């Protein structure tokens, strides 16, 4: 077949990119070669439209042990000779089409990124976004995604310890499924995704290769010209049992000392792993595609190279040590085939039936090498005019706080996500220290290290929509706040940047500003960005999703004794607010869901103020001045007060002494506020410390045995509020 610019365009390469490929090869590529460029230069693999701005993020420093993007996941020093490996990744589009397998393979893929580095995964988190829960379509997607995450994670045996679920109209067609994993490794025992050593054998490990997920990284299979493509399933199918065996076998094979480098096969399968490992080591590979175990007969070279069949790894082994490697995989009943060897000429040569099917320079295929990098135009979105035009005076204050609060805590974004959480095994590993002691970030024991980790995923995308720069900062600040109030010290960040079409200048504006805001906040909190993933093209028929830069943050607890829980401990304890109340209802759930206001600015936020509050709380926790700490988030102060009571069925008696609007005081979502409870002695010391540090602290009231009183009004008891909060989501689903 003749390869023309039309072929390239059908493979979603531009005419300019096609010219560039011809230039780099010094000839016209054949179909197989063109397919590999299409996959490797896709947005997903090359970051061609995002890398310019990603480079502005703080990508080194702190306790980082490898620079961002160097390996499959971020690696940071947690002390005592151990490293923590973590990463978040999206599986939005597969989940939109086939929620169960889409979400399941998302979980599988992120776990492989962790154990391919030699780390054992110890916890999973996820961040999910759907359309309105009342829609049957949303319920089907939610059910499928949650089932898929549970199916894979429960069998794989890593606890799902935290997550977030939001429901907004803009995610109706295009839900977001972001999965994060955290693992532990001994410093110096990590395995790099590098190929080295002429003549070293290349092994293909794990599941056989089928036609599933071909082109997942780059193009819709319907556009491909070759005949067999029409039957290709676009979404991969996961096998968590296989992955569990792969995990154990990979960790065991590393112990043999025979492994030179290893990389999992995710997007763009064999071509991506061979290209990236070769480019990183400055070498090439000679691969015999006939030796790749397949599930189907007569697979073509380009299908083998691009297949995204799950549970596969590429491994370079030291020549002469093959037997030790084979022995481990045989023990685990996993297929392990030698498919080629490392060469020195920097070229990837793929053979089939003795024919050279593709001859490619590895370096030209990869990010940081020959892959194009674009500077995109951006302009301020028109809707921001409407955001700026908002005035709080256009909204009448509430007169019935109790009734409003009752509605508020049953909004799916605020209500308990219990229906979701119980479907994930959260206690396997006997490491989840938050099961019986809830806190804002999950606290997970890192067995064998003497330490614990705090971890959280956060992003309020409505804030980012309202103000991409400030919203980006808030996502980082909230993650750090959750770690800090739980007694942890923030270490670093992984991010999953979910945006619309980058060729739309208004979408690109959101991307640029959000990344800039994240970068500024990360520098302030000294939490470098260790890696992550960018997902563009998240669009509905009527426009892009809210800009959603999901932040995954990991912190460390050097001493588990600093673990601080969110719940009231004892009746009679004092309840205090650390931080400043504001006359602000902007972008709150209250304003958006109950008042129906779509456009308002991001809530009050000041980076220095936030930083000061976090330092104060961290220090107060160290000095044991608080019995509990919980930040104010969606739903504002009143929701925090209620949430603090649910775990032990304790109520509260609080009063507002204020000139602020009632809705702003109780329901506003101004940032940088933390509700703490203290014994009498703690409260005295905390107030003294606050005065000395110039931090605003307000006494709100006291903890009760169950009765709730607000400004003297009887609100009933905590259990009836808890019941409404707990059952709101299942009531909608079961309707």
């Amino acid at each position, binding site marked *: 077949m003749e390869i023309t610019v039309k072929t390239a365009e059908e493979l979603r390469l531009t005419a300019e990119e096609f010219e560039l490929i011809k230039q780099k090869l010094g000839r016209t590529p054949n179909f197989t070669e063109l397919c590999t460029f299409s996959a490797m230069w896709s947005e997903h693999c090359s970051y061609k439209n995002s890398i310019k701005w990603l480079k502005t993020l703080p990508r080194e420093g702190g306790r980082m042990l490898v620079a961002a993007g160097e390996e499959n996941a971020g690696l940071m020093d947690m002390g005592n000779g151990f490293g923590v490996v973590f990463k978040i990744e999206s599986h939005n589009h597969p989940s939109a089409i086939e929620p169960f397998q889409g979400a399941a393979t998302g979980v599988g893929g992120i776990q492989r990124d962790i154990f391919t580095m030699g780390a054992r995964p110890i916890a999973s988190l996820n961040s999910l976004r759907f359309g309105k829960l009342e829609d049957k379509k949303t319920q089907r997607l939610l059910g499928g995604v949650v089932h898929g995450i549970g199916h894979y994670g*429960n*069998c794989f045996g890593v606890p799902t310890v935290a997550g977030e679920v939001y429901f907004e109209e803009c995610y109706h067609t295009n839900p977001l499924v972001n999965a994060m994993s955290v693992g532990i490794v001994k410093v110096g025992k990590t395995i790099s995704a590098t190929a080295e050593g002429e003549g070293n054998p290349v092994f293909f490990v794990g599941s056989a290769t089928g036609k599933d997920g071909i082109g997942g990284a780059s193009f819709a299979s319907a556009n491909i010209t070759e005949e067999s493509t029409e039957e290709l399933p676009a979404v991969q199918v996961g096998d968590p*049992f296989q992955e569990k065996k792969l995990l154990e076998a990979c960790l065991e094979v590393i112990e043999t000392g025979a492994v030179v480098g290893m990389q999992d096969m995710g997007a763009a399968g064999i071509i991506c792993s061979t290209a990236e490992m070769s480019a990183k080591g400055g070498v090439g590979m000679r691969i015999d595609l006939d030796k790749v175990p397949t599930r189907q007969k007569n697979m073509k070279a380009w299908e083998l190279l691009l297949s995204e069949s799950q549970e596969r790894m590429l491994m370079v082994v030291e020549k002469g040590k093959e037997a030790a490697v084979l022995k481990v995989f045989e023990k685990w009943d996993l297929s392990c085939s030698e498919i080629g060897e490392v060469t020195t000429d920097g070229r990837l040569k793929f053979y089939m039936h003795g024919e050279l099917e593709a001859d490619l320079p590895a370096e030209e295929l990869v990010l940081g090498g020959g892959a194009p990098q674009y500077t995109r135009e951006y302009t301020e979105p028109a809707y921001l005019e409407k955001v700026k035009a908002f005035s709080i005076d256009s909204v009448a204050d509430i007169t019935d706080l109790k009734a409003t609060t009752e509605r508020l805590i049953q909004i799916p974004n605020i209500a308990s996500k219990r229906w979701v959480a119980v479907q994930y095994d959260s206690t*396997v590993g*006997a490491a989840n220290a938050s099961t019986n002691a809830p806190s804002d970030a999950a606290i997970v024991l890192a067995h064998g290290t003497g330490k614990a980790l705090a971890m959280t995923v956060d992003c309020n995308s409505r804030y980012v929509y309202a103000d991409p720069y400030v919203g980006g900062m808030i996502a980082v600040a909230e993650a750090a706040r959750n770690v800090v109030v739980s007694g942890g010290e923030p270490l670093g960040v992984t991010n999953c940047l979910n945006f619309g079409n980058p060729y739309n200048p208004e979408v690109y504006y959101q991307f640029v500003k959000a990344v800039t805001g994240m970068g500024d906040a990360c520098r302030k909190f000294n939490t470098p960005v260790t890696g992550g993933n960018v997902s563009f093209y998240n669009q509905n028929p009527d426009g892009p999703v809210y800009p959603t830069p999901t932040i995954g943050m990991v912190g460390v607890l050097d001493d588990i004794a600093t673990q601080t829980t969110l719940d009231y401990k004892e009746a009679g304890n004092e309840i205090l607010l650390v931080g400043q109340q504001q006359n602000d209802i902007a972008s709150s759930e209250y304003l958006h869901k109950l008042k129906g206001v779509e456009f308002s600015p991001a809530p009050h936020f000041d980076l220095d103020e936030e930083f000061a509050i976090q330092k104060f709380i961290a220090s107060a926790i160290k000095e044991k001045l608080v019995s509990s700490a919980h930040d104010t988030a969606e739903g504002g102060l009143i929701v925090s007060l209620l949430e603090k009571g649910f775990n032990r069925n304790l109520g509260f008696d609080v009063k507002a002494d204020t000139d602020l609007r009632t809705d702003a005081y109780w329901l506003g979502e101004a940032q940088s506020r933390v509700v703490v409870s203290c014994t009498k002695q703690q409260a005295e010391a905390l107030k003294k410390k606050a005065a000395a540090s110039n931090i605003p602290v307000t006494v709100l009231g006291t903890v009760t045995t169950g009765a709730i009183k607000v400004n003297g009004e009887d609100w009933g008891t905590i259990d009836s509020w808890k019941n409404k909060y707990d059952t709101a989501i299942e009531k909608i689903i079961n309707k």
Partner: protein
Amino acid sequence: MKFGVVVFPGSNCDRDMQRSLQHDLNKEVIMLWHKDEDLSMFTTEDCIVLPGGFSYGDYLRCGAIARFSPIMQSVIAFANKGGKVLGVCNGFQILCESGLLPGVLLGNANQQFISKNVYIKGENGEALKIPIAHGEGRYFADQKLLDELEKNNQVIFRYCDEKGALDAGGNPNGAERNIAGITNAGRNVFGMMPHPERATSALLNNEDGRKVFSLLGLN
């Protein structure tokens, strides 16, 4: 008394069980590979544990393949000699599939996987908080067998509420007569769905699992 913990390729609670027994309960533990058959290092005073997980993927009925594994032939012989055997979660399912315990474990009544703290009580009547995590944990047997199990005191744990009441509210999966765990007629084979090994550490703020091991006579 020492313990042998069986590792099937898809076991994922084997290491938790090992840590709980060794570290928290100070027991000697030997890990056993599913392809091995040798249990000669154990006497009938010792206990073989089948941990939780997805032994062989459990894409078929849970435990249906595991019963045919080499080690299970030895475990069955060991149990028939009077040796102690404990199966937790997937281990319980395997024991039922192997015929070492009567009855079956069906899909949860709500058709979903359930992971949460529940309360169970044994013969001393104290409600113990123990986590469950299973999709197929609904104990089922015909009424005659259930009557017999009760008559012989073979029901060792039942789901209850926080205060110990045996009501439907405390039963997470629809198990017949709130059954969470049973023993065989010889009282040397024990199976239970809840995970005591996930509740033996002060760092997890729940040590009720220690009482479970104690009620089983395995402490």
